[in-house]
C-alpha cells in the first residue's frame, strides 16, 4: 500500500472509531468525551455481558452489518469493533 492509501485508511478508521464511540455513548448512556479509540469493555461498568449484546445489536443497526455468532464475543474494544466493521480495508 502506498502512503496515500495508508492515509485514507487511517481517516476512514478514525471516522469509524468516532461512530463506534457515538454508539457506545448512546447504548450505555456514558459521556461521549470520555470515549476514544483506546476504549475497551473493562473501562465501562455498564458494558457487562447483557450490555454487550445490546451494543452488538446497536452496532449492527448503525453500520448496517450483521455479525456472526463467532464474531460477537470479539467486539470488546473500539479497536476490535473498528477492525470488524471496516473489514473490507483489511486483508484478514
Amino acid at each position, binding site marked *: 500500500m502506498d502512503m496515500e492509501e495508508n492515509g485514507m485508511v487511517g481517516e476512514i478508521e478514525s471516522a469509524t472509531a468516532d461512530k463506534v464511540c457515538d454508539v457506545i455513548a448512546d447504548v450505555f448512556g456514558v459521556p461521549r468525551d470520555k470515549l476514544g479509540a483506546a476504549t475497551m469493555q473493562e473501562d465501562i461498568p455498564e458494558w457487562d455481558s*447483557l450490555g454487550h449484546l*445490546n451494543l452488538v445489536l*446497536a452496532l449492527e*443497526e*448503525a*453500520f*448496517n452489518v450483521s455479525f*456472526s455468532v463467532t464474531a*460477537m464475543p470479539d467486539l470488546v474494544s473500539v479497536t476490535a469493533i473498528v477492525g470488524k466493521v471496516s473489514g473490507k480495508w483489511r486483508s484478514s
Partner: protein
Amino acid sequence: MATGTNVDPPTQMDATGSRADVLARLGSRRTPLTLSQIRSTTRHLRSLSEPMVPLRAAVLHTYTTQLLQPYWQFESLLQGFDLHLYEAPYGALRQEAEPGSGLTASDPDLGYVFMRWEDLEPRLGLPVSGLSATEADDVLAGAVAAVGGLMRRLRQVGPATLVVTLLPRMWRPELGAFDSMARHSDSDLRRRIKSAIARDLETISSALFCDLDEVAIDIGRTNMFDLRLWETSRFPFSVVGSQAVVRHLVAYAVAQLQPKAKCVVVDADNTLWGGVVGEDGFAGIALGPEYPGSVYATFQRRLLELQQRGFLLALCSKNNPQDVAEVLATHPHQLLREEHFAAMRVNWLPKPENLQALARELNLGLESFVFVDDSAHEGLAVRQQLPQVTVVQTPADPLQLPYCLDGVARLEITSLTTEDRDRTRMYSQERARQATVKSHGSIDEYLASLEMAMRVGIDSEQHVARIAQLTQKTNQFNLTTRRYSEAQILSFMRDPDRMVAHFSLADIFGDSGLVGVAIVRGVTGEVAEWDTLLMSCRVIGRRAEAAFVRDVLQRLGARGVKRVMATYAPTTKNQIVSDFWPSVGFRQAETSDPSECLYACDLPMGAPDGPLPVRVLEASE
C-alpha cells in the same frame, strides 16, 4: 437488513412533542422501530414532566428476558406508565409464588410469566406427532396442570393480573406442509393445549393467556427470533420480535390500569369512505368492491369487529346531515348503518365541541373515548382541548387503513361478557324507550308500560367478571365508588359474612342484562354495613334501584339482621345519588365524623310509599 428481517423500519422519526403527540404518531404503527429510534424516543419521553400512571410489573421466566428492558421502558413510557419492573431470578417460578419472595415484595399490579412448551411437559421437547391419542391426551393434561398449578399459586400471593406466555416454536411444524392434513400433528396438539389452558384460566380470576404464536403470525416467524442470541444467551427475540412482544404485554397493563375505553368515535370522509361526500357526491365517494373503495369497506368491517369487543361506535363528521344520512341509509356498500352508531354528531361545529356533546349524550367520560380521524389538524385540536381523549390519525396510505386500529393498546380487552357484546343493541333499545316516554302522560304510566321484571341473584360466581367490571367502570350511580378486582369479588362471594347481590332488568323492549350490584358486610350479625351499591347508567330513571334495595333488605332481615348502616361517599361524578338513601327509607345516623354521610335503616322495613313498577323474580341461574 442487518438483523435478517425483511420488514423495513421507517426512515425518519420525529421524537418531539407531548406524550400524546408521540403516541398519536406511533401508537398505531405497523412498521417496527430501530433500536436507535426506541432509545431516542425513550429519552425524549423521559424528559417530559407529564404525570404518569405507576405500573409495577413482575417478570418470571425460564429463558433470558433481561434484554427486553429497553422495550419495557419505551412501551411503558409511550403508554403513559412510570414502570417499576421486577425480574425474578432465571428459572425461578414456584419459589417466587411463595410469601416473602422477591415477587411478593415487589407488590406487582401485573405478573408476566415467560415459559417454554417443554417446561409444561417434558415430552413437548421431543417429536409429538407420533404419540398415540392417549399419550397426547396425557401430555395435554400435564401441560394444563402445570400452567394452572403455577397460576393458582401465583394467585395466592398476588399480582392483581397474571399473564402467561409460551415461547412459540421457532421452526416449521414437525410434519412440514402435511401438518394441516395429519390427524395427530404437533401444531394440532399445541392448539388443543392452548385452548385447554384458556378454559382452565377462566376459572382463576384475572389470569390470562397471551398467545405469542399470534405475534409470530403478525410479524413472521423468521422476523421474530434472533437465533444468535438464542444459541449464546437463551434470549430468543430479535429487535423486531422484542418490541412486538413487549407491545402486546404492556397493552394488558393499559387495559387494567388506565381508564377503560368505551367508545370509538369515527370521522366519515376519508375514514368510512374515500373522498368527501359533500364535494364528490353520493355517487362520487369511494366505497365498494374496487380500490380504493374496497379498503374503506374493509375498514368498516374492522370497526364492526370492534363492536364485538364491547366498544360503542359513534360518528363525528363535518358535513351536511342529509349527505351523511343518505349514505348510511341507502349506499349499497355501506356496512355501518345508523343503528350501528350509539350516537352521531354531523354538523359544522368544531370536533372538540361535538365530542363533548357525544360524551354527554352517551353518559360517558371523555377519558373513555378513542377518536379516529384522517385529519392531523382535527387530531391536534382534540389533543390540545381534550387531552383525555386518545387520538388515532388514520395512515396516509389507504392500504394501511384496515390495520390502523390493530396496535392501539386501549382497544385491547381482558374480559368479554354478553353485556359487552350486546352493548350497541342496548343503546338502540334505549333510544326506543326514550321515544316511548314522550307518548305517555305521566312517568308512572310510562314505567308501568315497560312491564319491567328484575332478577336478583346472590353470590353468583358465574357473574364475577361482569360484577367486577361494574365496580370498576360505574361512576355516576355509585354510592361508595369502591373498585374491586375479580379476585376480590370472588372472595366476597365465598365469605359467609358478606353478601354480593346483583340484578338484571328486562322490559318489553329487551333485556338490559346484569346492571346492578350490592355488597353488604356483616350479614351474619345484627348490624350489617352496606359496602357497595351501584347501578349501570343505562337503567337510571326506572326506579329499579328502589326495588333492588327493598329486595336486599328483605333478604338481610330474613338472615336476622336488625339494622343496616349505609354511607354516601361524594365524588365529582356521583351527585345524582347524594340523596339516595333517604329516598329508599333510610334515616340519617349519628356520626362523630362530620365529613361522613351516614344513614341507617331498621329492619323489618315498612311498606313502600307507592307501587313499585318492577316485579322482582329470583335469578334462574
